C-alpha cells in the first residue's frame, strides 16, 4: 500500500459518509421520500461541521509542525556554519603547528651545518664582510624564518583543503 492510500485510510470514516451521501443522492426522489432526504441532509451537515473542525485542527497542527521543522532547520544551518568555521580554525592551527615544526627542524639543521661547515669556512676567509659574514648570514636566516613558516602554513592548509 502506498503512502497516499495510507493517508486516505485516516479519513475512512469521511469516505464512508461521502459514499453514503452519493448513494442517497443517486436514489433520492424528493417527491416520494423528502423526509429521508432531509434526514440524510441533516446527517451530512453534521458530518461536514465535524470535518470542518477536523480540517481546522489539522491545519493548525500541521502549521505548527512546519514552523518547528523550519526553526530546527535554521538552527541546523547556523550550527553547520559554526562547525565549518571551527573546522577551518582548527585546520589553520594544525597547519601552523606543522609549519612551525618544519621551520624549527630546518633552523636546527642550518645551525648544525653552520657550526660544522659554514662558520669554519667563513673564519678562514675573514675578508668577506670584514669578518661579520657569519652574523649577517645567521641574521638573514633568522629573519627569513617567519616568512618561510607562513608560506609553509599556507601551502599545508591548501593541501589539506584539497584532500
Amino acid at each position: 500500500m502506498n503512502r497516499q492510500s495510507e493517508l486516505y485510510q485516516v479519513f475512512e470514516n469521511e469516505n464512508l459518509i461521502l459514499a453514503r451521501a452519493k448513494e442517497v443522492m443517486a436514489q433520492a426522489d424528493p417527491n416520494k421520500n423528502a423526509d429521508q432526504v432531509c434526514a440524510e441532509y441533516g446527517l451530512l451537515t453534521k458530518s461536514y461541521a465535524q470535518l470542518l473542525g477536523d480540517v481546522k485542527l489539522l491545519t493548525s497542527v500541521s502549521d505548527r509542525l512546519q514552523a518547528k521543522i523550519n526553526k530546527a532547520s535554521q538552527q541546523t544551518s547556523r550550527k553547520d556554519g559554526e562547525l565549518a568555521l571551527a573546522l577551518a580554525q582548527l585546520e589553520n592551527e594544525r597547519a601552523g603547528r606543522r609549519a612551525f615544526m618544519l621551520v624549527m627542524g630546518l633552523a636546527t639543521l642550518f645551525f648544525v651545518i653552520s657550526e660544522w661547515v659554514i662558520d669554519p669556512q667563513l673564519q678562514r676567509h675573514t675578508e668577506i664582510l670584514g669578518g661579520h659574514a657569519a652574523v649577517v648570514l645567521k641574521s638573514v636566516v633568522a629573519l627569513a624564518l617567519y616568512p618561510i613558516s607562513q608560506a609553509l602554513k599556507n601551502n599545508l592548509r591548501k593541501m589539506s583543503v584539497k584532500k
Partner: protein
Amino acid sequence: MENFYLEETSKTPKLSFDAQTGKFLMSGRSIPENSIEFYRPLFEWLDEYVTSYKQPTVFDISLEYFNTSSSKCLVEVFRRLEKVGGQQVAINWFYEEDDEDMQESGEDFKEIIDIPIKMQVIVN
C-alpha cells in the same frame, strides 16, 4: 472486557487503557509509519468500551510530539469517547510549561471536541 495496553516505542506512544478503573493514559511520541494501522486496534477497543463502561473515565494525555495523521486519529479517539457522554469523561492534557506548541494543540482539540479537556502544566 480486557484492558488495552501497548508499550512505548521511539515512534509510538504508550497506550494504557484500563476498562475496569476507567483510567486511560497516552504518553510519549506519536509518529507511526501508518497511524491508522497503529490506532485501529484502539478504535475497535473503544467501540466496545463505550457500550459497556461502568464508571467515569479519566483520560490522561502526555504527548511530547505527534504528527498530523496522529492528530486525526486522536480526534477519532475523542469522538468515540463523546459517545460516553460529556459528564462521564474527563480529559487531562499535560504539557511542559515551555512547550507552547503542545499547549496550543490541546486548545485546538478543546475547540472541536465535546468533552471537557483540562489543560495541565508540567512544571520542570
